[in-house]
């Protein structure tokens, strides 16, 4: 809006400046006054100069793009993004040459997930999981974990049916998989069975060594579910 205001002001000042000699009676000292032709030319120029200038600018300019002065903004986040953007093109070329390239597919999926393009990342992970399953790859469960977590991210944190199918598939192959168990319990919590979720998470805590990284997340999830339950109970008591 400010840009259009400034452009309008510039147009107005310029048009007034160039038509002024045509209408300035005081400057003609040698007898010639302002004629009809002068007035007509002034009117034409006053109308047409802004119109032509704006038309020319709007056909070539990009008024919707803001400036980004590198000297005044924090570039850390953009730099991370830059690396991924730079890596995207070579990966795309690799996949064009060989669509079954498992490494390129996984990198492309991870890159899209980091760039926030979760739906595209899910497509690449699904493709990668299919290929890994066909190859009977020993890391298949890990790829399926990544797929499931990206599906949850794509659904804005909700464990939907598609994600649940992925975690079920993992649990069929590896019943003790902590990631799949965690999300399966989260599915229960998000669908109203918070007691069941707490029971599953508590059971998970009793397995494995106590310092495993995911146990911190499970403890936090149990605390959140319990807080939610007690809040719901308080609300019911008040009613």
């Amino acid at each position, binding site marked *: 809006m400010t*840009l259009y205001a*400034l452009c309008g002001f510039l147009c107005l000042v310029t048009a007034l400046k*160039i038509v002024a000699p045509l209408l300035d009676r005081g400057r003609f000292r040698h007898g010639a006054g302002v004629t009809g032709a002068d007035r007509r030319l002034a009117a034409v*120029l006053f109308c047409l100069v802004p119109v*032509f200038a704006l038309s020319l600018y709007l056909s070539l300019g990009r008024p919707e793009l*803001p*400036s*980004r*002065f590198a*000297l005044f903004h924090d570039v850390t986040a953009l730099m991370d993004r830059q690396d991924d953007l730079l890596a995207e093109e070579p990966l795309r070329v690799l996949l064009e040459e060989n669509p079954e390239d498992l490494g390129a597919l996984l990198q492309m999926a991870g890159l899209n997930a980091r760039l926030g393009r979760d739906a595209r990342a899910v497509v690449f992970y699904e493709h990668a999981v299919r290929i890994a399953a066909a190859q009977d790859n020993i890391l298949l469960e890990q790829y399926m974990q990544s797929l499931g977590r990206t599906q949850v991210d794509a659904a804005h944190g909700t464990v939907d049916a598609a994600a649940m199918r992925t975690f079920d598939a993992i649990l069929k192959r590896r019943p003790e998989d902590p990631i799949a168990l965690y999300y399966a319990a989260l599915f229960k919590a998000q669908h109203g069975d918070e007691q069941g979720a707490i029971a599953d998470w508590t059971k998970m805590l009793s397995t494995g060594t106590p310092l495993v990284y995911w146990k911190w997340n499970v403890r936090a999830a149990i605390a959140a579910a319990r807080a939610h339950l007690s809040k719901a109970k308080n609300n019911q008591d008040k009613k």
Partner: protein
Amino acid sequence: MIPELGHFALALACVIAAVQAVVPLLGAMTGRTGWMRLGRRSAVTLGGLLSISFFARLLAFALSDFTLQGVFRHSHTMDPSLYKMTASWSDGPGLLLLAAWLFALWGFAAARFGGRFPARFLSRALSAQGAILFALLLFILFAANPFARLDAPVVDGLGLSPALQSIPAGFAPALLLAGGAGFALLFCFALAELGKHDGAAVFAARLRVFALIGFAAMTAGVTLGGETAEWSWDPRRNAMLFFWLAGGAILQALYLPDAKIAARGTAAWLKDALKRNRLSLAGAAACAAGILFSSLPHKETAAAFFFVAVFVFLGALHRLLEKTGGLRRWRNLPQGFTGGVLLWLGLAVFLAGATGATCWRSEKTLWMRPSQHAVFAGRDVLFTDVTAGIGVNHDYDRGMFAVFRLDAPDAHVFALPEARWYPVRQERRYVTAARRDGIDVFAVTMGARDMRDHAKRRLRLSLRPLGALGPLGGWLMVLACLLMLPLRRASGKNGEVAE
């Protein structure tokens, strides 16, 4: 927003240039005073609009606005501030915008200070300027847009080419364009005069100022360009030399006595000036050919062309002196006798320096390790040490050399060439250390390391006889032009000549 405002100012300037091309000319044809005055007003407005446009792009470069394609391609946040700004005219679109801006500023000066020109004559000249500017701006907007934007945000740019990261390389194009734009305005005045001969009385006298400033700017540009090319007459950088020599011929023609021009009429004078300066123009052509040939391995051909050029120029000078009645008549010129003499002296010194540095230059390439020495061109060159360091946007290895004259061991100079690595561009640049040794120039360039013995360096030693005279002559000529500028106003009625 700032680049878009600059872009809009450029579009508006294009429309105003179209108005300036048509309305003042119609005014001069029909005698409408208001329409003629509109020409002067629009020339002033054009100067303002193109200033907004030019400074908007300059600001985008200074603040690293990487949404602009030009900034992304030719700048980097690590580049020194000065080179961020000179980068704004390092690409085609930037150079064209600079040319348009400088041309508009010349038009602004003509409109603002050209009150003594007859109104019809000035209107026709400004109309011609408007037409040229309109074509130039249309080309800039549609084919080489300096405000083209990038859709995707980027963190940093690709950086300025290391070859352009020096003060001479940064400012030589701007000065050359300033001079070129000044001569383009002279062309507009000549067009205006050829149409109707009503400016004869003031034509030459008034244009001298424009020609002198244009010639001074162009001379400074050629001199700086010579420094950039290390006085080796790289035709890519010094193609402007032809226009410069032609400009010198025009300047010479403009310094005929006013009375003679007025008596003959301007058209006859222009014809006579062309005939009178045919030898100078031929000399200019020969020089240009010499420059082009000097890029070929046949140095002898280049030397021959250069000598031909020098003699042809001397012939032209002799002819001029003969026609004007020798040195005695120089005193009768309206102003700037000292400047005139200094100008010719500067040209002679310049040509001597350029010829010596190009034709009698000797070079030697060798491998040396620190603490070794070599004998070259009557000098003992001692390679003392190499130190590594970090510059603003580059890493460097700086060599230290002491150069002793064999015939006078007490006289010595030090040279500090650098081998630089620019990580952003992934390019190397070898900065030559050129040191004046009397009137000669001794230069040392430190190149790459030996792959097997890293202490060993490839070196290029060169001696350019009379090399110090080239820049000296160039700056003498700039000084001469400034001395020749008329400091007092010519007598006559103030204000515009009435129609």
